[in-house]
């Protein structure tokens, strides 16, 4: 479950003046992890939001499990860069949010929340408010909230972008571990080549203005993965250099034209 097909997807802003995405074609298999890389403003986040129909599109189709997407789907969960926790809800209530909307019973919710609190290592913090937690802990909660509804598709919008480097690596390990126990189809938008190689089965590199798929790299590093063993893998260096060269050629014209 969770097969995604994107066909001829085009999105413009400002009445067509800015083409954010042009003719994107992408097939993502069930349980596959695809990382999307590209310069700032190349429409990565726009692409992610269109997949869950959080914003509209000009042309083209998105299909999940052969069904055209026209509104947010209950089996798709999003993890946001800004965490998006409700400040008035305690940690356990935040994780329970999606379950409550789906009308699960009290016992059901309690059991599921308990399970994910343990899985993300936040036992003992259930009754804390988000502002009492560190950024890393808040994003763990954001991840737990998404996982708790048992989605078939996980959309990650630079989820670790706001975290410091060390917390970020810990979160990557955590995510690798969690996805090993519960496989999901995942689209993971990131700025970091390293993060993309560590987490992805394939890496989509996008080009800018208009946003297009420039190239797709298969990662071909076996799972289960650990960050350190991925980095020691010969394929890691090879991919890193190839992607870096490609992004560098993308970046230069951008920096002069974009404020």
């Amino acid at each position: 479950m969770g097969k995604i097909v994107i066909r001829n997807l085009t999105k413009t802003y400002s009445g067509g003046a800015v083409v954010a995405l042009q003719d994107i074609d992408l097939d993502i298999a069930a349980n596959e992890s695809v990382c999307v890389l590209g310069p700032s403003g190349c429409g990565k986040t726009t692409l992610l939001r269109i997949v869950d129909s959080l914003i509209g599109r000009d042309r083209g189709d998105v299909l999940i499990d052969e069904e055209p997407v026209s509104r947010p789907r209950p089996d798709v969960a999003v993890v946001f860069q800004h965490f998006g926790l409700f400040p008035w809800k305690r940690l356990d209530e935040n994780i329970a949010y999606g379950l409550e909307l789906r009308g699960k019973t009290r016992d059901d919710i309690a059991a599921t929340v308990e399970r994910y609190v343990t899985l993300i290592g936040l036992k003992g913090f259930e009754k804390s408010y988000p502002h009492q937690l560190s950024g890393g802990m808040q994003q763990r909660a954001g991840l737990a909230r998404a996982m708790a509804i048992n989605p078939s598709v996980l959309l990650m919008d630079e989820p670790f972008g706001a975290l410091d480097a060390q917390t970020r690596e810990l979160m990557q390990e955590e995510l690798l571990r969690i996805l090993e126990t519960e496989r999901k189809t995942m689209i993971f938008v990131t700025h970091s080549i390293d993060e993309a190689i560590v987490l992805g089965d394939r890496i989509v590199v996008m080009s800018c203005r208009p946003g297009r798929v420039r190239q797709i790299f298969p990662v071909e590093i076996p799972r289960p993965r650990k960050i350190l063993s991925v980095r020691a893998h010969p394929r890691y260096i090879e991919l890193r250099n190839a992607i870096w060269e490609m992004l560098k050629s993308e970046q230069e014209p951008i920096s002069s034209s974009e404020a």
Partner: protein
Amino acid sequence: MTRRSKVRLLSLVVVLGLWEYYGRRVNPILFTYPLAIFRAFIELVLSGELQSYMRDSLLVLLYASVLSVIVGVFFGVVMGRYALVEWATDIYVNALYSMPMVAMVPLIVLWFGFKVPAKVIIVFLFMVFPILINTYQGVKDVDRNLQEVARSFCSSEAQLWRHLIIPSALPFIVVGIRLAIGRGLVGMIVAEFYTSITGLGYMIVRYANAFETDKLFVPIVVVMVLGVGLMSLAKWCERRIAPWRNFDERE
């Protein structure tokens, strides 16, 4: 006792002491002193006069508060949620909020008479706009990111209100209520000045006309204490209702 409360206490003792000392040397028709006010207070309580007038005032305040919270929150939310309503009504709301509501008092008395309904309407007009406008601001202020989160989890409109809009706007609503209480007290006294039948405002007018300055000060002090008490209550509610806003608090 902290240094802060020591200074406060000392300040109170000094001010009351000076007032007591110099107040006794002034013609009692023009001014009075704390002990005389206290004596007058006891007298008015023993005769039951103070309680009876206070009850009338508080009832008006209570009715008007309940009415203005219901009406203010409801229209505030509606205005915040539906642009059409906002565009159609915001000029009137802002005009009425900016206008010194005292100007409306004679008109209200002309229309509704001198009894409780007229006073409730006057106090209601003093109170409703800060609540309405704050609620509206609170609804407008709802975090767009969180709205997107709600959409991504397929929230229904009712769930959106319950989980996002109301909790998010609640601190604004409580601040609005706090502002409204201050204005409501003004409205209550003005209404009672104008209608002059009963209430603390009427007591003030009556004892001022009778040159009984010590008794005149009793309702003044009562209104002051009432204001301080209600404000503190509102602030306490604010803390209870929105604990996530107290960023220093650790539980």
